[in-house]
């Protein structure tokens, strides 16, 4: 197909066939007004504000739907066009409440802007002002249908992008509006409060409550940040006025979220301004906390830790870093603990993540995500199993939907009817806890029907024979009995996954024991290896984490056995490199893991603990036991933004800055390192974690010389080959996915193109264990699907102080 040449407003342009006039004009930087057009929705051509004049055509055409033609001559602002647009505006104004003075949308309202642009001050038609519903029943936003211009964008976002299906056009004629079925309040509908209707409404019909009366758009500053909740790391802009966040909008150009958000990103930031924030260092005396100066607090910490270490040795100290703190904070944290002579440094967040890490490392040699989030949308088949991304990682859910819309075969194997089932081709409502059996069954069919990628298995993998012997037992009939599905359903699902040119598996890092833990993850890896669906674009295994910087904190060496990016401490060269760079001797002793330290009935030998942004007492398995453990320590210091269950047991509590108050980087679940700019001054006596750690190091007598996070990052990048090519300067242009070994390296979109981290991919012979299924702990496959669980526990500490705790339909908030 050859390109098409046309002329728009006297300028020539060449575009691909099928391009609309609107798109062509935008390429030329010509601004044609639009109301109902949205690049990711099917055009509906409803509003007619985008009309243009095409020479030789009788009528004006809607440029958002009209394709370009060869030799076309287009005028976008001719007299005819302008007069048509004025009529459109005039008709809209005829029954629009002209509330501009108080309307929150003033300054960002397309109707207002276009009326200004075409000088339409009032309507030439006389129309009744509508008297439709004004719904403010929920905690998040107001829906004023009298201002709605029926562009349909909110409907498209809600039905097609989000899949919540909460709103649609209802009724006909003058009373047409958009709303939930039976015109119920939005709160009683299937709305998930993602806010995407709000973000895209061209007028003031949908207004978030938080912004009311707080400031005009031109009075606010927009600061780029990374969502502090889940590990997808959506890019947001914080709207700041007078050192207060008054709103959030998604970053349109973000490769991660492409203008999309979920309830947490859109509404969950208000904890930053919670009255519960700790604003000064606290020291416990006679059982009550009293505010002290920083000097006093630091003195006390240094003396106490030195005292414990002199009496019980360096390994009597343990540090817990935080999957919510930045990379710089975590890097300095493990550096400080290791500089104090021990490798007892770990993160406590969710044991369920540990099994998924183990499974991935065994199969591929590395736990990091194989592929990028955006790639899911372009794949040919998706298997969703052991996960409910709709609640745990909404943006990933949106991408799965997009893939289905583009024609990918979608297999959803979950016990409960989730919304994703609506758009699936194969729904496998398997019995809870039988996921592993199903995966083995799928592998069985793929081998039996010769759907495997033989060349890939031959060249890139090992362990096939043993694996085959195991899955041979898992015939569809046998698996049908275990899972409660039919053999035919299992066969069809296997064919769907294996026959696609590219196929992806979407699960959750929070796999639990019941699903088979690490074995389940290995089974998923088997499936990818068997069909060659790893190491290529839009394939892979997705196991996103719960907390926003779990990947980063692990990358930063908050781990007893390795320093940054999995450089193992048994390697003398690694110890040597870090010892030299840090000017201290790094201990040869392996550290204790958090699980080992807290193991009931064992004496771990830990006498002092430094906990930065974690809450094991609330997030642990046996809460009472962990609380006792904390109480029995000689010394406990906790650094946090709130007085958590753990902090309340501490001897010293240091206040911490929230994400919006500090400069730093975070690494999301697709290995993308992203820069978060400070938007606010921290309250009271609060300093960012990195600054506290630098200060503390100085009090301990170490010579650290960091003027700011940028220099911290430069040091860690210089010691970490996977991060070596990343710098703040590059990050200010956008995130980079590691491995990024050099300044001119573009980052790595997907892993294992040529080889796995362990060389060959390893098949594992893993068996379904009926005991595990029976041992139901009340958590479904992804622990998130059944409510409050430790993998989201840190998020829960902050959502409790946020309006999103009002959102009753979701378990994650």
């Amino acid at each position, binding site marked *: 197909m050859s390109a098409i040449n046309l002329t728009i407003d006297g300028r020539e342009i060449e575009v691909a066939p099928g391009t609309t006039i609107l798109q062509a004009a935008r390429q030329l930087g010509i601004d044609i007004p639009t109301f109902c057009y949205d690049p990711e929705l099917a055009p509906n051509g409803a509003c007619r504000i985008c009309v243009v004049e095409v020479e030789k055509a009788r009528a004006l055409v809607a440029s958002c739907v009209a394709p370009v033609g060869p030799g076309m001559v287009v005028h976008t602002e001719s007299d005819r066009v302008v007069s048509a647009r004025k009529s459109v505006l005039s008709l809209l104004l005829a029954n629009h409440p002209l509330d501009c003075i108080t309307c929150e949308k003033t300054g960002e309202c397309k109707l207002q802007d276009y009326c200004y642009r075409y000088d339409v001050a009032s309507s030439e038609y006389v129309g009744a002002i509508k008297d439709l519903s004004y719904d403010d029943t929920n905690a998040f936003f107001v829906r004023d249908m009298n201002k709605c211009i029926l562009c349909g964008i909110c409907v498209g976002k809600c039905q097609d992008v989000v899949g919540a*299906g909460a709103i649609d*056009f209802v009724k006909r004629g003058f009373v047409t509006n958009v709303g939930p079925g*039976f015109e119920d309040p939005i709160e009683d509908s*299937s709305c998930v409060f993602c806010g995407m209707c709000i973000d895209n409404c061209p007028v003031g019909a949908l207004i978030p409550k938080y912004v009311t009366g707080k400031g005009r758009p031109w009075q606010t500053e927009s600061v780029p940040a990374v969502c502090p909740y889940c590990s997808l790391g959506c890019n947001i802009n914080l709207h700041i006025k007078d050192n207060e966040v008054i709103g959030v909008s998604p970053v349109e150009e973000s490769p991660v979220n492409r203008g999309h958000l979920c309830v947490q990103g859109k509404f969950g930031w208000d904890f930053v301004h919670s009255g519960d924030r700790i604003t000064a260092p606290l020291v416990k005396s006679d059982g009550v906390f009293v505010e002290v100066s920083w000097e006093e607090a630091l003195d006390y910490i240094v003396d106490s830790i030195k005292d414990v270490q002199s009496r019980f040795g360096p390994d009597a100290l343990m540090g817990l870093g935080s999957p919510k703190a930045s990379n710089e904070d975590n890097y300095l944290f493990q550096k400080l603990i290791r500089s104090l002579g021990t490798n007892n440094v770990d993160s406590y967040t969710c044991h369920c993540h540990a099994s998924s890490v183990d499974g991935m490392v065994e199969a591929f040699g590395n736990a990091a995500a194989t592929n990028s989030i955006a790639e899911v949308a372009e794949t040919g088949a998706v298997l969703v199993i052991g996960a409910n991304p709709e609640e745990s990682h909404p943006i990933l859910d949106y991408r799965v939907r997009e893939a289905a819309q583009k024609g990918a075969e979608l297999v959803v194997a979950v016990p409960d009817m989730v919304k994703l089932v609506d758009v699936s081709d194969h729904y496998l409502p398997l019995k809870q806890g039988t996921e592993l059996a199903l995966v083995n069954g799928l592998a069985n069919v793929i081998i039996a029907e010769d759907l495997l990628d033989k060349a890939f298995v031959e060249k890139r993998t090992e362990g096939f024979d043993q694996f085959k012997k195991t899955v041979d037992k898992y015939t569809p009939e046998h698996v049908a009995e275990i899972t409660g599905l039919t053999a035919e359903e299992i066969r069809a699902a296997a064919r769907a996954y294996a026959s696609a040119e590219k196929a992806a598996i979407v699960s959750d890092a929070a796999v639990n024991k019941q699903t088979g833990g690490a074995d389940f993850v290995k089974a998923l890896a088997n499936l990818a290896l068997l069909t060659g669906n790893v190491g290529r674009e839009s394939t892979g295994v997705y196991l996103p984490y719960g907390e926003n910087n779990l990947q980063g904190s692990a990358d930063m060496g908050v781990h007893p056995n390795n320093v940054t990016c999995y450089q193992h401490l048994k390697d003398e060269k690694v110890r040597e490199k870090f010892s030299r760079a840090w000017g201290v001797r790094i201990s040869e002793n392996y550290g204790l893991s958090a699980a080992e330290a807290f193991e009931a009935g064992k004496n771990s030998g830990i006498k002092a603990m430094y906990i930065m942004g974690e809450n094991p007492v609330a997030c642990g398995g046996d809460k009472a036991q962990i609380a006792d453990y904390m109480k029995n320590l000689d010394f406990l210091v906790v650094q946090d933004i709130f007085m958590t269950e753990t902090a309340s047991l501490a001897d010293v509590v240091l206040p911490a800055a929230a994400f919006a108050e500090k400069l730093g980087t975070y690494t999301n679940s697709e290995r993308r390192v992203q820069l978060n700019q400070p938007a606010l001054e921290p309250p009271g006596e609060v300093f960012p974690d990195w600054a506290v750690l630098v200060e503390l190091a100085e009090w301990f007598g170490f010579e650290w010389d960091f003027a700011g996070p940028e220099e911290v990052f430069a040091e860690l990048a210089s010691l970490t080959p996977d991060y070596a090519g990343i710098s703040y300067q590059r990050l200010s242009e956008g995130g980079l996915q590691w491995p990024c070994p050099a300044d001119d390296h573009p980052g790595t979109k997907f892993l294992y193109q040529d080889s796995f981290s362990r060389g060959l991919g390893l098949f594992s012979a893993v068996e379904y264990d009926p005991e595990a299924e029976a041992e139901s702990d009340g958590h479904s496959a992804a622990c998130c699907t059944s409510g409050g669980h430790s993998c989201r526990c840190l998020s829960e500490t902050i959502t409790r102080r946020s309006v999103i705790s009002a959102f009753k339909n979701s378990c994650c908030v």
Partner: protein
Amino acid sequence: MSSEAEVADINQDIDLSQVDSIVEPYLGKKEMLIPVMQKVQEHFGYLPRPAMEHVARRMRIPLSRLYGVTTFYAQFKMKPRGRYIIRVCKGTACHISGSPKIAERIEEILGIPGGETTDDLKFTLEEVACIGACALAPVIMINDNPHGRLTPDKMKEILDSYE
């Protein structure tokens, strides 16, 4: 008893197994939504909310979409019809002698547009073509009773006479 409560009571008696047998042949065929809803309406005489919710669930269609579609087409009734069906004749003779004014007055008294049912489920207002009583134009029928030679100011009394 409030009208909403009444509707709710009526709704409680909805036999969903009937809805199942209507929906069953169309599972997985979302494009067949309109015929399905027509059948549901045929069965119940209107579209009871529980039946709609059931169809939405079984056909995996958002309730909002289903409601949107059914409120778009005039043929779908969201309420059961009233105890008294008022049919205003729109035939030529009646039209000329002022039936539009009669209809307008009834709409005003009952507070509903044509085609709708009052919240207390007492009256449903409809139109008909000539009912063959042109000599009495303008004419309305209330259930089986014709009322002729009407003027707008007679309407209140006539409607009040129905308990």
